Each structure stands twice: as structure tokens, then as C-alpha cells.
């Protein structure tokens, strides 16, 4: 029997936590308590940063700024206005969150390098304001005489009591972050980080995930800042300077990104580093920089990642028991669905003068099996990209299930039931096949922060999604691979995992982009049989394929594209002999040859 303790790296983590707790207690002097308190403060800061940087994969450079703002708000409210901790603390959290919300509006839609600049700019302005707004912030001297934390009239004394309070809050923050990210929600972040287009195709709204992570990161930073102000008693613009940000980044990276435990370990180590490297005196920051550089080059997974790898190599774990397959139908199939499920009219798009699509008009009936063929570069994948919302057409309309979706975002189209697979694999290498497919349930289980929090101790959403995923894997004949990481799956299995993932959306229309590419004849035939069975269940399919022996018997109708234009349409037998199709594939002379 597998115990809870022996799963993953829980045992070494607990041992580590005990050792880290014992260190200040055994030393038992005021200085060791102070360092441990500071480590708790930084742990909160780094856990928050882990959410936006580690999980959301967005390089925010505002975490130090949010920390400083939280500290200043606490200092001003407590020292200048004499407010109690229970009043000032929530406001110290709210202020950076409010600022984050303002910055997020433009910044979070941006690619990583723009986000870095936008957040860096905020930090710079906040620092200048702290230095120059003397009346409020005390200018370069800062604010002194910040009272210690007082709870219900009793002051928390310095030393072990303060350390305990700070670490209790850090533990609560750690638990919240860990719980949030251990279920389906955390896996959405993982997919978005690795492949945001695949995430959108599953109905996951990248902007919303990033917003939630960004606001949460500000919340944690504000809490850390407030605790810092109260425990230090003084605050200066140094709290807003770049070294705080660098320290936080180094903690997240060195500890192990996308791991809450990594943030805590990084914080404890880096806070004690100057202590252990006393020889370096004030240049210990050089050691920070060097450690960051070494880890990012040699071990980008960080210390916790290294521990996990070590465990996997030395004591490989048995894969967990696969869940019982259980289909959970969520989407009701509209009885009076439109006569045409998908209608595309006059669709056109050009890339720098090259007309990739030039006036495509086609439609798909509910329950139909439609094949889309055409030579390489004829615009098949471009058409799928436009229909699924990755590209905006320059002209034309798209209607899906009676709705005009021409302007609709890709993730919303997926939620309407328009699913697709990708030509090149879009799976996350480290994720199991089961969880990859479970992610297809994200849109139906809820992709919001609230739904993640409501998911409960047992992560009900993930459990349901896995049950459904298991049934789909079974249906495609690959249940045996459920617990394997996608990166180690053979090509043909990967294709099926992707199909299963798209099916998990309970799509009204499933678009497959070359599902049989690279498959052997028997494998392709088996896949065809399974797709036919799905179609009998009422699924509508649009299949792009070059493999004619696979496609011809599968579909009822075929469309051929050439040079971005629709050149032929009809039953497979008609298309096979269609002169324009032969010309498109083989060229004019070949066509003449066929005639003779």
C-alpha cells in the first residue's frame, strides 16, 4: 500500500521543514528569530510571485513594488494615523491589489517583454513617489516608529512570538496557493504557460488566468510588505528598490519555479545567505546574482525540481491507480439545432500580400462527416485557424450553431462547442495523458478563481474531469497510457490523446487537422473505425487529411482547396476523379496525361 507520506517528495519536504524550523529555535537568540521572521515575510512575497511568474509564466517586475506599497501603507496608517493592525493590514493588501488591477488592464494582454516593461515602469514611478512625496512618505528618510503588530489589544512581542505570527500567516498563504494550484486550475496554468494557443482552443481564457494570478501576487506582496513594516519598525524607499524584486525573483527561481515549496525554500535560503556568506560583507548580493545565474543555466527547475527528479530517478514511483471511467455529459445537444452547424461565407485573409484564403464559402450540417483536402499551402490549416479564432479574417463571416462568431475570441468559440486538434503536437510533455485530456473539461468545470476555490479539499473538479477523461481514453483504445507523461508517448498515441482532449469539450463540431499523419495503415484504420463510431453517436466532424485511403471511406462529403480558393466539392468518389483536383495536386501536364 502506498502511504500519503511516501508520495512524491512529501517526506523530504517535511524533513526540510522540520530542519528549517529547528534552526532558529535551536540557536534561540534574538538574531536568529529576526532572520527567521524575515524569511517568513519573504516566503509570503515569493509565494505570491510564484503565482504570476512560476504558474502564469508572466515576467512581472512589480512584485517588489507591491511589497513596498504594502509596507508604506502599513507604516503610514499605523505610525502616522495610529490605526490598529486589524484595520491597517487589510488596507495594506488592498492598495497593491488596486494598483495591480489598474496596471493589469493594459499590461496583462501584452506579451512577456512588454509586461516586464510595464511592471518595471510602475515600480520606478512608485519609488520616485516614495522619495519625493515627503509629506506622506518621509522622503529618503522613510518612516520610523511603526508599532509592532497588535492583535485584540495585545502586542505581539519581538522574537519567537513575532516569528510565529509571521510564519502562521505564511503557512496560511502557502496552503491557499498550494490548494489553488493542485487541481484542475493549476493544470490550466501549466498548459497556458507551455502552449497558450492550445489552452485557448480548450476554452481557457488566458487573460483571466493571468489577471487572477497577478492580483493574487499583489495580495501576497502587500501582506508581506505589511508584516515587514511592523517587524522592522522602520521603512525607507529601499523597500521599493529593485534589489527586493531581484531577491524575490531569485527565491522563486532557485527554490523551484511553479512550486509553492520552492518559494518557501528559496526565501529561507536567500535570507540566510548573507549570514552564511559573511566574508562577502555587503557584496553578498553578488552571490545572489551568481546563484541565480548558475541555477537558471544549470538547473532551471530549481532545488525542489532537482529533488523531484532525484526521487523519480532513485525511487521511481508506481503510477497512481487510474480513476474509474465515468462520462459526465454536460452539454445538452440542442434538439432543434440550425440546419447548418457551421457556415463560412466569403472568408478571406492575407499575410503580407499573399492571399492565404480568398473568398471561401462552405457549410457543415449537424452530424455530417466532411473532409477537407488540398495540396500543401492551399490554405487548409489557415481556414481552421480562422474558423477556430486564432486569425482574424480580413473579409467574410463565420456562423456557428446559429451565432455569428466572426468577432468572437478563440476561447469563447471553444466554449460554444467548436473544438479542434493541432497538426503538430500541443501536449505538455511533463503532464500525464490523463490530465491532458482532463484539461479538456476545464471550460465545463469552470475556469475561474472562484470555482477553483470552491472545488473543495478533494479537488472535485479534477476528479470528475479525470473520470471523464479516462472514459474517453478508453473509447480511443489508449487507456493503458493514462498515467504516462505525454512527452514519452509514441506519436500515434499522442495524436489520440489530442483527439480525446478535444472530445472532452463535448464539442458540437470537432475539427481534426491531419489526425492520421505519420500513422501506419493499420493504426490509421483503427483510428478511422473509432471516429466512425463517434460520428454514429452524433458528433459532427471536419477532417483535414492528406491520407486519402484514411479519409475517403470516413467522410460523406469532401471539399478541396487550392491557392486559398475552394475548387471542388462533392462525394469522395466525385472528388477523386475531379479534373480540377487532379490538376491542383499533380499540375496541368499530369492532368493532360490522365486524360490520355
Amino acid at each position, binding site marked *: 500500500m502506498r502511504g500519503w507520506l511516501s508520495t512524491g517528495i512529501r517526506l523530504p519536504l517535511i524533513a526540510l521543514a522540520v530542519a528549517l524550523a529547528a534552526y532558529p529555535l535551536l540557536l534561540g537568540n534574538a538574531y536568529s528569530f529576526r532572520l527567521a521572521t524575515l524569511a517568513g515575510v519573504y516566503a509570503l512575497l515569493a509565494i505570491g510571485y510564484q503565482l504570476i511568474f512560476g504558474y502564469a*509564466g508572466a*515576467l512581472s517586475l512589480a512584485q517588489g513594488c507591491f511589497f513596498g506599497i504594502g509596507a508604506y501603507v502599513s507604516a503610514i496608517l499605523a505610525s502616522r494615523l495610529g490605526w490598529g493592525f486589524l484595520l491597517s493590514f487589510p488596507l495594506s493588501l488592498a492598495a497593491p491589489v488596486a494598483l495591480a488591477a489598474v*496596471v493589469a*488592464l*493594459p*499590461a496583462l*494582454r*501584452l*506579451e*512577456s*517583454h*512588454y509586461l*516586464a*516593461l*510595464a511592471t*518595471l*515602469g*510602475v515600480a*520606478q*514611478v512608485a519609488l*520616485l*513617489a516614495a*522619495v*519625493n*512625496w515627503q509629506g506622506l512618505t518621509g522622503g529618503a528618510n522613510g518612516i520610523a516608529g511603526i508599532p509592532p503588530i497588535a492583535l485584540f489589544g495585545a502586542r505581539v512581542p519581538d522574537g519567537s512570538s513575532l516569528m510565529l505570527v509571521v510564519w502562521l500567516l505564511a503557512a496560511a498563504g502557502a496552503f491557499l496557493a498550494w490548494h489553488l494550484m493542485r487541481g484542475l486550475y493549476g493544470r490550466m496554468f501549466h498548459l497556458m504557460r507551455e502552449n*497558450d*494557443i492550445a489552452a485557448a482552443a480548450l476554452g481557457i481564457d488566458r487573460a483571466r488566468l493571468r489577471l487572477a494570478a497577478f492580483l493574487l501576487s499583489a495580495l501576497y506582496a502587500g501582506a508581506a510588505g505589511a508584516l515587514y513594516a511592523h517587524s522592522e519598525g522602520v521603512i525607507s524607499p529601499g523597500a521599493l*528598490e*529593485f*534589489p527586493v524584486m*531581484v531577491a524575490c*525573483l*531569485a527565491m522563486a*527561481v532557485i527554490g523551484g519555479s511553479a512550486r509553492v515549496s520552492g518559494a518557501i525554500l528559496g526565501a529561507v535560503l536567500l535570507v540566510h545567505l548573507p549570514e552564511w556568506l559573511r566574508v562577502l560583507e*555587503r*557584496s553578498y*548580493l*553578488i552571490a*545572489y*546574482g*551568481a546563484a*541565480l*545565474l548558475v541555477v*537558471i*543555466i544549470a538547473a*532551471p527547475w530549481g532545488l525542489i525540481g532537482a529533488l523531484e527528479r532525484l526521487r523519480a530517478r532513485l525511487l521511481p514511483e508506481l503510477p497512481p491507480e487510474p480513476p474509474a471511467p465515468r462520462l459526465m455529459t454536460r452539454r445538452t445537444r440542442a434538439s432543434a439545432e440550425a440546419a447548418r452547424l457551421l457556415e463560412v461565407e466569403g472568408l478571406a485573409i492575407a499575410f503580407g500580400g499573399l492571399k492565404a484564403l480568398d473568398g471561401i464559402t462552405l457549410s457543415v450540417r449537424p452530424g455530417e462527416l466532411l473532409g477537407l483536402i488540398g495540396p500543401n499551402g492551399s490554405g487548409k*490549416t489557415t481556414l481552421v*485557424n480562422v474558423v477556430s479564432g*486564432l*486569425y482574424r479574417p480580413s473579409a467574410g463571416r463565420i456562423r456557428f450553431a446559429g451565432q455569428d462568431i466572426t468577432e468572437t475570441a478563440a476561447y469563447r468559440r471553444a466554449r460554444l462547442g467548436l473544438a479542434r486538434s*493541432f*497538426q*503538430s503536437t*500541443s501536449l505538455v510533455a511533463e503532464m500525464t495523458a490523463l490530465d491532458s485530456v482532463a484539461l479538456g473539461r476545464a471550460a465545463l468545470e469552470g475556469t475561474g478563481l472562484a470555482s477553483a476555490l470552491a472545488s473543495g479539499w478533494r479537488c472535485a473538479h479534477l476528479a470528475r474531469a479525470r473520470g471523464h477523461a479516462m472514459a474517453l481514453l478508453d473509447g480511443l483504445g489508449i487507456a493503458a497510457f493514462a498515467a504516462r507523461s505525454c512527452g514519452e508517448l509514441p506519436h500515434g498515441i499522442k495524436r489520440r490523446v489530442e483527439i480525446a482532449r478535444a472530445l472532452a469539450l463535448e464539442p458540437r463540431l470537432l475539427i481534426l487537422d491531419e489526425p492520421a499523419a505519420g500513422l501506419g495503415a493499420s493504426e490509421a484504420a483503427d483510428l478511422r473505425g473509432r471516429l466512425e463510431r463517434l460520428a454514429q453517436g452524433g458528433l459532427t466532424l471536419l477532417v483535414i487529411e492528406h491520407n486519402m485511403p484514411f479519409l475517403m471511406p470516413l467522410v460523406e462529403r469532401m471539399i478541396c482547396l487550392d491557392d486559398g480558393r475552394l475548387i471542388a466539392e462533392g462525394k469522395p468518389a466525385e472528388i477523386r476523379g475531379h479534373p480540377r483536383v487532379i490538376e491542383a495536386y499533380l499540375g496541368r501536364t499530369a492532368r493532360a496525361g490522365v486524360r490520355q
Partner: protein
Amino acid sequence: MELLQLTIDGVSLGAAYALVALGFVLVLNATGAVNFAAGDLVMAGGFTAVALAEAFPLPGLALLPLVLLLMAALGLVFSLLAYFPLMRRPPTAVFISTIALGVILQNAANAIFGAAPRKAPALLGEHLYHLGGLSIGRQSLAIVAVAAALVLAQHLLFARTQLGRSLRATAQDRETAEALGIPTLRMIALTFMLAAALAGAAGLLLANRYFVEPTRGNELIVSAYMAVVIGGWGSLPGAVLAALLIALFQVIVSAYASYTTATALLYAVLLAALVLRPKGLFGEAIGRRV
């Protein structure tokens, strides 16, 4: 008249900014990565000039070739540490490695030179020309002249020489350049050397009038980064022009309001520009092959 005076000051500051931004874009185009230590390389150049001036009490212009040379060597070391080990990883990894190197540079400077601001010699001695009501420092004119000469030299190198064509080919499409027999790795290393040399020159130019201190790079990277975003991600002339505009804006608004107001306003303009023309978003996310 006051505005004219400020414009002259702004142009001379902007000329130095332009060199920083230029180095930033050259590395960006060659590697696809942000060099976050661009500002710290300027600081390193400033301190190199300060140290050289202590050893050889010569005018700044005479020290310039030596600063360029030493900084190019630093650029090579920089690329070996921050870029080449990470070249097959996502650009964020390089971003972080350059942050790390920036921290190392800052604190090394702090350990060697101390935290106090230091001053490098003027390019051609300090002298004020009076022209009507204007007073123009010889240093300001020399900064503009030297920066213009370096920008021109970079342009000619890229536009007119075989080496420049190889550098551009590497930046445009590394795989194709590789296939054509261009030693792309050497070209990238050379780009880092060039960028560091330009940053070093900017350090020498700035360290007289504006002094140099270990944390100086922090503001400079924000300005350079902004210039590259406003000028169009990856555009060389855009970066130079935007750097000039940013410096003018900073100098003029600082004079009438305050440096804080100027920086906050500049930042607001930047955010607005990003909202209205989020080129990065559409340019990259959609251009990716799926």
C-alpha cells in the same frame, strides 16, 4: 529661449540614451532576448572611464577608444555567461540571466568604487559657449557629435560591409544564415560586443555631466526599454528617435514640473501607447505557426 536651452540639453542626453537603446535593439534582433543589463553595461562603461582617467589623466575623447575596447571584451564575457548557455531556452531565461548579471555588475561596481557618484572627464574639457541668451556646454556638443558618429559608424558597418550583412542576416533568420555558411554564433558574440561597446560609450558620455554610480543602470534600462517599445520592437532608427524624444520629454517636463512628474507622465504615455497599439500581441501570438 528657456525651451531652446532645454531642448539642447535634452538632445545631448538623448544622444547618449540613443546609444543604449541601439545596443539593446541589436542584441534583441540577434537573439530575440531582452538584455536587462543594458543599463548596467552603461554604468560599467562609466566606471571604466573613471578608472582609466585616474590612471591616465587625459580628456574623455582620448579614453573613448580604450573604453570601447574594454567594454567589447566585457560584452564577449557577458554573452558567454548570459546568452550562449541559454540559447535554446525560452527568451525569459535569458531575460533572467541578464538580470542576474546586472546585479553582479552593480554590486561589483559598488565593491570596487563605492556607492557615491563619481565623475568621468569631459570629452574635450569643460567650457561654456554663450550664444545670445543660450549657454551651451562644450561637453553637450561633444556628446552629440560622438554619439552621432557612433550611430553613423554602426549604420555604415551594417549597411555597407560584408561583416554587417552577415550580422543582419544572422539577426533576420539565423537558420538560413547558418545554411549560407555564416558563422552565426560568432556574429551573435560580435553583436554583444558591439552592444556593450555602445553602452560603454554612453557610460563615458553620461558620466561627466550626470555622474555615475552603481545603481545608475536601473533608470537607464527603463529609458532604453521604453525607447525600444515606443520606437517599434526591433526597429533601429525607431529606437534612436524614440530615445531622443524620451530624453527631451524628461528634460523639458522635469524643468517645468519635476522629474517624478516627468517619469510618471512618460510612463502613462507608454501604457497608453501599448493599449492603443499592442503590436507585440498581434505580431507574435498570431504569427506563430500552429
